[in-house]
């Protein structure tokens, strides 16, 4: 049963990649709504492109965290307690963002919608950055003592590497959302998405590549280096597809870039799940941080049954809502007036 912790490491990596891939475009759409959209109709086109799916996408995060708790309690405990402050911001950001999606169109005043637009955009930005910081900390190290507790104060996680990680998820999400909007909408939003992806992607992908390289230089293997090359090649393919007007290939290409880069990072790190920058002997590893074989076995059965099912019905959702959203699809906003007779 020695292989089970490794299986669970792979499952958790898959869950994180699934999260970054799916919520990547949701978070990016939130940022584009604040920074790129020209008017309310464009914002609503963008929002409704992710409308039916964003909540299901966010569950990938909850599942990644829950699976880490079940399979690697020590990893879960050390990582989350060490990153206390940034995770508080991530949670607040995700809370505001979720509520903003539901509430922004239900108010009467301009102030109301302006407030929720900001909550949605800034929430998406902060969440993306904080998730990047968290994963970068888990792959580049934290000052952990022998008990797995952070030393060095509340901001000990703040290093150049974690900032690169934060920027990596923000940059990727922006590009990913642009290609997503190009694929899922029509009209001005689609054009703007294509333009943004073409113009900004060469810079926006750099932090993720840098993060992958940081991990390679400290613990890379030939295979993980090869994945970095794949990631870089995927960017080139995606960028030229975008230039050539092939929206589907551009989306797939940038998606592949994420998958390859994250796989390269986690593969290089294996079997360490959370390095300690104080002493390598304090590193949390797949073996040292994992639950007992019985628990991992039970969870494996659940995952074998659950993950394919999730992929199937989430895939079906994307099929049901495959139609592009455009300005003419957006219904008018209806004011809600009290059903009361005025004297």
């Amino acid at each position, binding site marked *: 049963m020695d292989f089970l912790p490794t299986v669970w490491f792979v499952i958790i990596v898959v869950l994180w990649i699934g999260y970054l891939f799916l919520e990547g475009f949701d978070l990016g759409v939130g940022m584009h709504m604040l920074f790129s959209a020209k008017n309310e109709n464009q914002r609503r086109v963008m929002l409704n492109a992710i409308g039916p799916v964003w909540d299901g996408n966010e569950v990938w995060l909850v599942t990644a965290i829950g699976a880490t708790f079940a399979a690697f309690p020590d990893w*879960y405990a050390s990582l989350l307690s060490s990153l206390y402050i940034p995770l*508080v911001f991530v*949670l607040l950001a995700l809370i505001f963002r979720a509520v903003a999606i539901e509430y922004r169109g239900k108010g009467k005043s301009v102030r109301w919608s302006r407030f929720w637009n900001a909550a949605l955009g800034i929430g998406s930005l902060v969440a993306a950055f904080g998730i990047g910081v968290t994963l970068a900390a888990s792959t580049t190290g934290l000052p952990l003592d022998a008990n797995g507790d952070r030393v060095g104060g509340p901001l000990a996680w703040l290093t150049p590497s974690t900032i690169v990680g934060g920027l990596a998820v923000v940059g990727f999400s922006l590009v990913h959302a642009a290609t997503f909007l190009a694929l899922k909408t029509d009209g001005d939003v689609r054009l703007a998405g294509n333009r943004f992806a073409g113009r900004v992607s060469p810079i926006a992908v750099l932090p993720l590549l840098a993060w992958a390289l940081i991990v390679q230089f400290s613990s890379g293997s030939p295979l993980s280096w090869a994945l970095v090359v794949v990631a870089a090649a995927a960017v080139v393919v995606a960028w030229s597809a975008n230039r050539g007007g092939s929206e589907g290939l551009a989306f797939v290409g940038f998606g592949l870039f994420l998958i390859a880069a994250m796989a390269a990072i986690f593969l290089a790190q294996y079997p360490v799940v959370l390095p300690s920058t104080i002493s390598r002997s304090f590193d949390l590893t797949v073996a040292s941080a994992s639950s007992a074989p019985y628990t991992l076995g039970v*969870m494996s059965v659940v995952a074998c049954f659950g993950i394919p099912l*999730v992929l199937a*019905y989430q895939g079906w959702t994307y099929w049901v809502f495959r139609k592009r959203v455009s300005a003419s699809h957006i219904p008018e906003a209806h004011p809600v007036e009290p059903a009361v007779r005025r004297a």
Partner: protein
Amino acid sequence: MGSLDPLLIARWQFGITTVYHFWMVPLTIGLGPVVAGMQMRWHRTGDVRWYRMVKFWGKLYLINFIVGVATGLVQEFQFGMAWSEYAKFVGDVFGAPLAMEALLAFFVESTFLGLWIFGWNKLPKAVHVACLWLAIGGSILSAYFIIVANSWMQHPVGVVLVKGHPVMNDVWAVLTNNTAITAFTHTMFGSFGVGGAFLLGISWYHLWQRRRDGIDTVDAAGRVVSGVAPDIPGRDGSDHSIWITSLRIGAVVAIVAFAGVAITGDAQGKLMFQQQPLKMAAAEAACHTGTSFSVLSVGKLGSTSCSDVVPIIEIPGLLSFLAKGNFTTTVEGVDQLLPQYEAKYGTNLPDNPIYGSRAGEKIDYLPMMEVTYWGFRMMIGFGGIAAFAAAVALWLTRRGTVPRSKGVMLLAVGGILAPFAANSAGWVFTEMGRQPFVVAPNPTGVDGVYMFTAAAVSPGVSAGEMLFSVIALTAVYAVLMVFEIRLLVRYVRGGIASAVPELAEPDQPESDDHSKSDVLAFAY
């Protein structure tokens, strides 16, 4: 101990965020099945009134649902953030139900709710309502898994002790823990009670408003004569029947829910007398062994000596009935139980760095009696009030409308809060009653599987960080509460037209069929 105690702040944070989260959850669970049932009735009868009910109650359901989802995120993270020692100690068994919850319940809930929200006119009707049922099933399944996790803290089963840590060896024992089964059913009925009172209070408001606006009148026999108000969107021929039907559904749901709550609560109480006798003794302020149930006791309840507690009104035999099902078996009181706990689990916390400055401190095994005693009574009291009010409401509306009195209307609307309060009081009681343990020992389980709350908090997190998060989260939650209530009030007052906007535009035919036009039936 410094001026700022991380343990105390972390406990407040957990209490605040969890009680708050469990205001949204029971409404989601209580309202969802009613909405789905209404949609099935609409499909079966084709009656537009059911369609309008689905739209109206469904809108309120979603406004509330999202805050539950958003605040639920915090729960998944804070075991690791603030309670890292706890997470490491119990992770082998406690993490599994949390992961199952995410993988088997949350995905279903979120994905299929998205399909329901956006699936109007896109999905075949049967598939569309099936999506709502699946989403509701996901909500209920997630409640089950989290209660399995919580019940393991109340009554650990299915584990062996390996190197001082509980290690799971029987997942079925964990999933079928009798503590979990009774707590889950109890919580479900408690949630249905919330849904029922919500339907009742809001429908009452609309029936009252219709009378106030002169739309409905009563004849000499007191029977309703319902009318229409062409100048008010939504107040047409079907409006009256929508509200009286919703009101009666709500009242019946609330009454049935309370019966369920009482039966499951009784079973749960009997279990707790065996599993955590000190919690129940504290709930009863039962200082000495006996058979009487305290209806009212006063005194310095916080004191552990019990010497200050003066019973004012007692019902002989009732305590025995609650605990054992007869009127004569004596139930052990605090004075008898405390020495047993001290003998078994020690009089002082071990001299272990995990307890920080609390190492070696004397252990107080008695939960805060004011909290458990009054929590227990508020739970039962508010639940009973809600059920009684629902029965009165059915009787008062037997002739088809509500009294004109504004005061009674305000009572009915305010009554929405009673089952919420009962739910919160119940959780506060059972969680505070578990103290000083975070994992309470199982009297018939494996020795050594328990954990003091004092050992559970994250050692690496400073009091300042905890203070920052508890202030930030509480402030944000308070703001969200204001927003949620404002929106609920606006959509409630808007009536059916707030959820079926075509009614506000007389030239547009009301229809759920937009297939000819390109416009989305629902859009954010």
